[in-house]
């Protein structure tokens, strides 16, 4: 059985220390103990059988393989199989869970138990832990299924942790053992499936769409340090600042601490007028990286002060971009915390 301690903390984003320090809740608090008591009788109860609607068949194997893009010739190629130990159509082992699935109306096949294998999860939900996330799925295969095999399975909830604090909120890790057997009651596969059942996500006031509290992908932030923070702060303050050597007056961009011309470390800034011309450009089509709109026009601008800056072009069709085209800056708050010097053609209508 997979113990939670086997799963790296990093994967789960679990921090036991921060649990104590930030939440002030010890690992086995009263809530945890009360809930654990309620669910204790549901643990280690083997529930089943859950039967299959159909025997293993070529048709279903074909449907699976074509849907998953699995072209292993072992499964369906009769000629290929002649040189193997298999005589009949062979099912991909990972189809295991599919055979005993309910039908489209949600009915289990005849002969299946009426017991709900997930009563424990339901009970956790009723106690305020209604969020569910699959964490791990460890499978073991003992033999291949071939055409005509008839499958059933049993489910046992084998383990539940104390209340844990994670990046998703507080909750319990629950591990299910699923045992898959054939018509001779011989186990051909089994799986340890771990779920994280966590505090029911609270709906935000005014939130309309489900999932709207999921963090939106935003633009990558620049890394600011002593050498360049003036540049990013300048943008937030409404100016595109170009570094200027205090000693020889040479302008430079991107920022660097020492003047390439005279090696002075003394520098100030001048505000760019925001006028320039396109020195070169590209239009990005693929891959489409969120959160950007595509196609994404990127240009290298010769600012009239004499330095170059890479930026996004707006208000222009890809085919209309030309080297030498005059452009002007629009300082744009592209997201809550980021202002960028975007450029558009001079006289563009907006």
């Amino acid at each position, binding site marked *: 059985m997979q113990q939670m301690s086997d799963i790296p903390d990093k994967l789960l984003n679990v921090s036991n220390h921060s649990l104590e320090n930030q939440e002030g809740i010890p690992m086995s608090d009263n809530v945890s103990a009360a809930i654990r008591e309620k669910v204790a009788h549901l643990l280690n109860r083997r529930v089943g059988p859950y039967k299959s609607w159909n025997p293993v068949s070529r048709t279903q194997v074909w449907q699976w393989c074509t849907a998953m893009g699995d072209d292993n010739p072992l499964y369906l190629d009769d000629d290929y199989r002649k040189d193997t130990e298999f005589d009949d159509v062979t099912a991909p082992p990972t189809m295991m869970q599919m055979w005993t699935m309910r039908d489209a109306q949600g009915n289990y096949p005849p002969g299946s138990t009426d017991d709900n294998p997930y009563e424990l999860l339901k009970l956790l939900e009723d106690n305020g832990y209604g969020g569910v996330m699959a964490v791990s799925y460890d499978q073991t295969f003992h033999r291949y299924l071939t055409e005509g095999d008839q499958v059933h399975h049993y489910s046992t909830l084998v383990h539940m942790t104390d209340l844990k604090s994670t990046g998703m909120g507080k909750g319990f890790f629950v591990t299910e053992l699923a045992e898959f057997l054939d018509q001779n009651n011989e186990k051909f596969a089994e799986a340890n499936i771990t779920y994280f059942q966590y505090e029911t996500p609270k709906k935000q006031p005014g939130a309309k769409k489900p999932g709207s509290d999921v963090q939106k992908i935003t633009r*990558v932030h620049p890394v600011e340090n002593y050498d360049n923070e003036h540049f990013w702060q300048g943008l937030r303050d409404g100016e595109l600042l170009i570094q200027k050597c205090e000693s020889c007056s040479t302008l430079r961009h*991107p920022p660097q601490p020492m003047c390439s011309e005279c090696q002075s470390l003394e520098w100030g800034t001048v505000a760019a007028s925001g006028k320039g011309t396109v020195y070169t450009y*590209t239009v990005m089509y693929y*891959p489409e990286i969120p959160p950007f709109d595509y196609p994404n026009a990127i240009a290298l601008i010769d600012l009239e002060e004499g330095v170059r800056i890479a930026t*996004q072009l707006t208000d222009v069709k890809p085919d209309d971009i030309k080297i030498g085209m005059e452009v002007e800056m629009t300082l744009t708050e592209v997201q809550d915390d980021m202002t960028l010097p975007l450029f558009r053609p001079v006289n563009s209508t907006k």
Partner: protein
Amino acid sequence: MTATISRKAAIVGIGATEFSKDSGRTEMQLAVEAVKAALDDAGIKGADIDGMATFSMDNNWENEILRQIGGKELKFFSRTEFGGGAACGPFVHAATAISSGLCDTVVIYRALNERSGLRFGSGQLFSTSPMDPNIINFSHYFPYGFMTPAAWIAFSARRYMHEFGATSEDFGRVAVSMRDFAATNPNAFFYERPITLEEHQNSRMIADPLRLLDCCQESDGAVAFVVTTAEKAKDLANTPALIASARQSIVKDSRMMTPFYGESISGIPEFDACASDIYKMAGLSPDDIDVACLYDHFSPWVLPQLEAFGFCDRGEAKDFVKDGHISRGGKLPVNTHGGQLGEAYIHGMNGIAEAVRQIRGTSVNQVNDVNHVLVTAGAGVPTGAAILEKG
């Protein structure tokens, strides 16, 4: 330049894993497989290795490899920064260490799961650690979504078109020529899959003007080499590939993939700067080069390499290519293995392995009477170049 390293060291072993889209094993295993193959190819034991050199980007530590290949101790080890720009640096270091007597026999390796692991073209290339010089550099580009190698290269490709009248078809001819070599190389992704210029022109736009077929593979695999003294090389079975010259190159306008601020950005100033040294150190001229293995992460940047190394004048590479000189049967066949466009993307190291095969006479696309092969490392980054000579 005092060329004390010239012809003092030779590549005597090459080894590689298969090249794939999903190796199904760790980069460490790829590395030791390739190193073992290179040692076997050279007829040298792990215990006889006393130096190692690789890329800063390689994730496999020298000590871990040494232990597995039956090694005992290393007197020398070094790494080279700047992605594919590191492809020649390890050979410069090996030749320097060997010729100076620091060590005798150096293993060079590069192993990467670049397709099944971290894909460089995904836009997710670098960490956000403020201590990472990559992100300091890329902070001026990532916020705009300007975050893929193809897009960065496109800036220069567009200028090259603008300044010299080159077209997408001119880039396409490079792409077609590389795939033609790949089509007869069983180790190549494009094996038995030549492409036409029309297919190139119809391939999807990635970052204008770069189309899909202008872009290299994304690959899993490893390549390794054994470099030893020219003296020892004489006693080994393989024809030695002497390092006739090798040099690294950074110029004042060099940047990490974003060389946008020089007076001209249509060429490759690092190669302009090192080409004369490369020839002088070897005592050779462009006419002496029989085959070239040029770094081809993107087809447009093969053109200015032909110019920098003196095979044609500035701006004329498009005509040189159009006349078939870099193709099968041409006067300077380029990337006879299919290049990174057609064989696999192993950070340029598969190109150097092909250079060794051409010297030995064992390439699947063997050119007659090969004595000298020019090899280059990545373009658009601090880089390097070398000439290998039949020993």
